[in-house]
């Protein structure tokens, strides 16, 4: 379709939607002159316009809602590298954190596995984000601060860190252990929150 005709269709459409349906017929008669194809084009568009635009929001909304549901949950017993998932600890818009344990029986260790939805962010942004998070974790070497054990990208990107530093352990640590640990733990969690929760444009 050439540009002139397309513009003409748009112009007539814009004017016609301002009119009552009873007036549209006469208006189209005038505006389309002796061009029955143009008139038919406009009539079908106006019929579609009258049927409402809810179909778009509906269709997109249903699939988007489904995407946000727990489809990519890792069920208990799922193997992630050397670890086996025990249960979901929490989740947010960016992904979820699971409690897991060594699955190979080499030694007992519980870890937290953070799974970032690869669907939630653009892959390049996701990797930048994970690299920044790893740099921060690498700089914070402290028994009560998450230590990065392993990380990698699978179908979803995965980053793991030690369970002992999950927030629960911060809360159960005794007050006598000093301000320092609490502070650093919170620095960690604050920084982590800044990384995890910053709203980002979805491409």
């Amino acid at each position, binding site marked *: 379709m050439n540009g002139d005709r397309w513009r003409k269709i748009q112009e007539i459409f814009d004017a016609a939607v301002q009119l009552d349906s009873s007036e549209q017929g006469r208006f189209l008669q005038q505006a389309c002159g002796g061009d029955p194809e143009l008139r038919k084009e406009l009539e079908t568009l106006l019929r579609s316009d009258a049927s409402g*635009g809810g*179909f778009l929001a509906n269709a*997109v909304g249903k699939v988007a809602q*489904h995407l946000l549901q727990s489809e990519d949950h890792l069920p208990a017993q799922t193997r992630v590298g050397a670890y086996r998932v025990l249960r979901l600890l929490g989740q947010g818009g960016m992904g979820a954190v699971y409690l897991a344990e060594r699955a190979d029986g080499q030694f007992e260790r519980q870890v937290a596995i953070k799974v970032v939805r690869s669907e939630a962010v653009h892959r390049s942004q996701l990797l930048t984000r994970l690299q920044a998070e790893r740099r921060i974790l690498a700089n914070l070497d402290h028994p009560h601060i998450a230590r990065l054990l392993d990380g990698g990208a699978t179908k979803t990107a995965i980053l793991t860190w030690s369970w002992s530093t999950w927030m629960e352990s911060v809360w159960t640590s005794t007050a006598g252990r000093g301000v320092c640990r609490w502070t650093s733990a919170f620095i960690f969690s604050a920084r982590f929150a800044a990384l995890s929760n910053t709203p980002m444009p*979805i491409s």
Partner: protein
Amino acid sequence: MRQVLVDLARTRSANKRGGDFTRVTLDEGLIMGRGDLEELIEIDRALSKLAAIDARKSEAVELIYFGGLSYEEAAETMQISEATLDRELRFAKAWLHRALTSASP
């Protein structure tokens, strides 16, 4: 975002055709019928056709419906007035609706 949703719809739609290995949940709220998936795929196709004729209209639909931007944000992104955006959207929706309901748009 449009790509994400359409890819998801394609995958799920293919899975549903492929047999019964998809676990069925009894929560009605979570069930997405095959119709929903295919409608989105159809919308995506129609939107690509629209983009070939009039890229601005297709972009408006994408920002508002797939990107979830407000009218104000979308108008700013596209550097057009909200009134123009509104016009573009109304026409685009009518055009898409017709494309989806008729055999030859």
